């Protein structure tokens, strides 16, 4: 940024329009504005700040407690009830572009002593294109922040009265802040802060959501699967044992078949078993048939519904409404012949005639008619099925009862055979039969256990299926948790990485500023041999070390502190590479001639554009001579005590 000119009108003591052009020349880069105390140096400095940034921007106060901005002379000349404006225009160059900002404020004169703001305060920023056309820049604050941020401004446009602040013992925080702002380390600081905040939020959310539900469900599912496997293994084991027992029974039967005294009973038993198998199958078949018949014979329960529905449908048919084609033909025939079926003539226009005409027009839809006809037929078929179904069911039920009786008798015979074999006087037959009975009991017991196991497997299947569904839900929830965890990790890592980068960068910057401050300080200070070193430690305290190696800052004079601060500020601007002018309001007020001579000799080398607001007292003699070769523009603020107004006069 390089300032070109400033124009003021109706601004404090600058009643009439005043313009001041700053020097931009590389060799003569200094602009000096002379003015006695009260002539308007501070007002001009204020006008520059106000025009560029307004009163307050991004919570940073630019001008505060400075009284009215409008010219008192302008107010005095305005009638009561009239409005008065103050305006400042600043033109500057930045990155090869020319910008112009104009800011205006308005007040109303309520009485001779009272003025009130009208609320009108407006600023417009224009960018002048290469073809000379000016276009408005909509976002003034944003643009100014990209050129010279409001919070950095104070290190380039500063009040010489306050310049020694950085050299005060309690200024470490200010020094650090200044470095952060000017070197744009603040951006890293903010990024680190926001990422840490995000990581904390993610962590909190993760803590709330993470329940370990999935792990519990997986454990439950694994357990259920294990139990199912064990049960299935038990079924296989029992099946094998049953098979083995059956082979044993077969073996016993072969042995019994070979014993003459058991042969007849064995044959009886084989016949009984064959019969039992056959009758059992027949009964099973009957039961299945009964099941299919009974569970689908709901219409038997709803017979009254069928009867009533058929009644409704039949009524329609009896009335001749269905099929409508028959009725329509019949009525049409009557109308064609104009004769009733009883032989009477039908008079055109008579009541009978009108009724027949109405019947011709009134008809049901063909879709409904088809439905009615189909339904009537279907209902009748079902009704006709009631009795045969009941008969069929009854016969099958009777058959089942009969088969049960046969089976019961056969079982009685079977028991009798077994008893005879078991009670045989021949020990071998008796023993074999007892063994056979044990194996049969085992088969029965094991078959029952298989049934129980199968039931368990079935309920385990249902449980596993439910657990699978719940697990899938929990997996989805955990996937969200994992994502959250990843986000948290990334945010935290980024924050940590930025923290490290910040530390490294800040340290590097601090050291570079330290070196530069030392270099500048040594060129500006007049007791070079007395001060040996400048330190800007990790604690950001700006220290001066004297020739004895002691920290000399507490002993520095006000002027020396000012030089130290100036060195630090200019060092920062050099290190930052920020293209901005140094605008200094009464910079040398506290300095004695020696440091002033030094500063005026070296200061122009430290910046591309130097603008000094000075009193004649602070810039004279050798100091003025030092600056002269570098002065490109020089002005004097002429204050007229009669009008209390200032004009800007160029010093030729």
């Amino acid at each position: 940024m390089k300032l070109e000119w400033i124009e003021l009108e109706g601004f404090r003591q600058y009643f009439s329009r005043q313009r001041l052009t700053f020097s931009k020349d590389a060799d003569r880069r200094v602009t000096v504005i002379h003015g006695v105390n009260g002539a308007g140096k501070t007002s001009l400095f204020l006008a520059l700040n106000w025009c560029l940034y307004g009163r307050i921007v991004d919570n940073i106060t630019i001008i505060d407690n400075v009284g009215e901005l409008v010219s008192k002379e302008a107010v005095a000349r305005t009638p009561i009830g009239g409005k008065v404006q103050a305006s400042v225009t600043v033109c500057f160059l930045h990155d090869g572009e020319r910008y112009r900002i104009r800011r205006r404020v308005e007040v109303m004169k309520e009485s001779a002593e009272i003025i009130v703001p009208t609320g009108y305060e407006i600023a417009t920023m224009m960018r002048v294109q290469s073809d000379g056309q000016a276009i408005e820049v909509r976002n003034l604050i944003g643009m100014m922040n990209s050129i010279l941020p409001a919070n950095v401004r104070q290190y380039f446009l500063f009040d010489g009265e306050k310049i020694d602040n950085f050299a005060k013992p309690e200024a470490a925080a200010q020094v650090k802040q200044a470095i952060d702002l000017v070197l744009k380390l603040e951006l890293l600081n903010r990024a680190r802060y926001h990422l840490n905040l995000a990581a904390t939020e993610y962590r909190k959310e993760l803590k709330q959501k993470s329940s370990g539900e999935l792990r519990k469900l997986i454990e439950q599912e694994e357990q259920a699967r294990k139990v199912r496997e064990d049960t299935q293994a038990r079924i296989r084991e029992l099946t094998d044992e049953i098979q083995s027992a059956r082979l044993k029974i077969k073996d016993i039967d072969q042995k019994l078949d070979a014993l003459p005294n058991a042969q007849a009973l064995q044959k009886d038993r084989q016949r009984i078993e064959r019969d039992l198998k056959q009758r059992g199958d027949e009964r099973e078949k009957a039961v299945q048939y009964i099941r299919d018949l009974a569970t689908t014979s709901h219409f038997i329960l709803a017979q009254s519904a069928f009867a009533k529905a058929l009644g409704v449908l039949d009524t329609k048919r009896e009335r001749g409404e269905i099929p409508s084609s028959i009725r329509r033909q019949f009525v049409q025939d009557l109308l064609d012949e104009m004769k009733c079926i009883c032989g009477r003539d039908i008079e055109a226009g008579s009541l009978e005639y009108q009724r027949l005409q109405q019947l011709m027009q009134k008809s049901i839809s063909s879709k409904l008619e088809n439905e009615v006809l189909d339904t009537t037929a279907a209902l009748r078929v079902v009704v006709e099925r009631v009795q045969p179904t009941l008969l069929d069911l009854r016969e099958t039920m009777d058959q089942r009862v009969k088969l049960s009786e046969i089976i019961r008798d056969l079982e009685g015979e079977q028991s009798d055979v077994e008893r005879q074999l078991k009670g045989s006087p021949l020990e071998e037959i008796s023993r074999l039969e007892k063994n056979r009975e044990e194996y049969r009991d085992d088969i029965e017991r094991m078959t029952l256990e298989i049934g129980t196991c199968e039931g368990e497997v079935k309920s385990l299947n249902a449980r596993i299926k439910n657990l699978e569904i719940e697990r899938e839900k929990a997996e989805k929830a955990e996937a969200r948790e994992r994502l959250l965890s990843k986000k948290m990790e990334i945010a935290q890592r980024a924050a940590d990485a930025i923290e490290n980068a910040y530390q490294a960068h800040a340290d590097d910057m601090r050291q570079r500023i330290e070196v530069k401050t030392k270099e500048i300080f040594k060129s500006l200070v007049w007791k070079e041999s007395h001060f040996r070193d400048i330190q800007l430690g990790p604690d950001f305290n700006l220290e001066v070390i004297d020739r004895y190696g002691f920290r000399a800052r507490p002993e520095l004079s006000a002027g020396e502190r000012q030089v130290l601060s100036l060195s630090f500020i200019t060092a920062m601007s050099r290190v930052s590479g920020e293209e901005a002018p140094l605008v200094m309001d009464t910079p040398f007020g506290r300095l004695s001639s020696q440091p002033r001579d030094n500063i005026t000799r070296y200061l122009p080398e430290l910046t591309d554009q130097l603008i000094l607001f000075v009193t004649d007292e602070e810039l004279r003699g050798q100091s003025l001579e030092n600056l002269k070769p570098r002065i490109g523009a020089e002005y004097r603020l002429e204050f007229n005590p009669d009008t209390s107004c200032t004009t800007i006069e160029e010093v030729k």
Partner: protein
Amino acid sequence: MSDSSISRDAVYIDKSVHEIYKQLTEGNDPVSVPFRTMKDVFLMAASLGYQKGVRQPLTGKRELIFRWAQFSPQTDLPLLKALAISTTSNIEVLVSPEEIVSIAQEYANAGIHELRLQILEETGQPLLNIVQLLGMNYR
């Protein structure tokens, strides 16, 4: 299943009675678990509801148990239509499948409790209890 997603060709029951449907259909033994399908339970429940003169609109959460296409045209659809015509005394109901199903659902919704009492709660084997319900005593 929420009411907002009701399908026009689907048959619903109250979620609260779904368990009864399961008890009557889930098992391998035809004597203790007689019904092969939920559709058969539904039709038996609707017939019993009509017989007892009880209808109960579905008010709670619904469960879709099968689709309209599962009804057989020989016996199932005539039953539904008979219930609808006899209840409304209006043949126009025949061209409104939604109303036909709705009426059957309401009878089944009330009849299912009666069916449970008579088949599962009565002494005797459930299959024989159905036979008894149809008018024969073999218990």
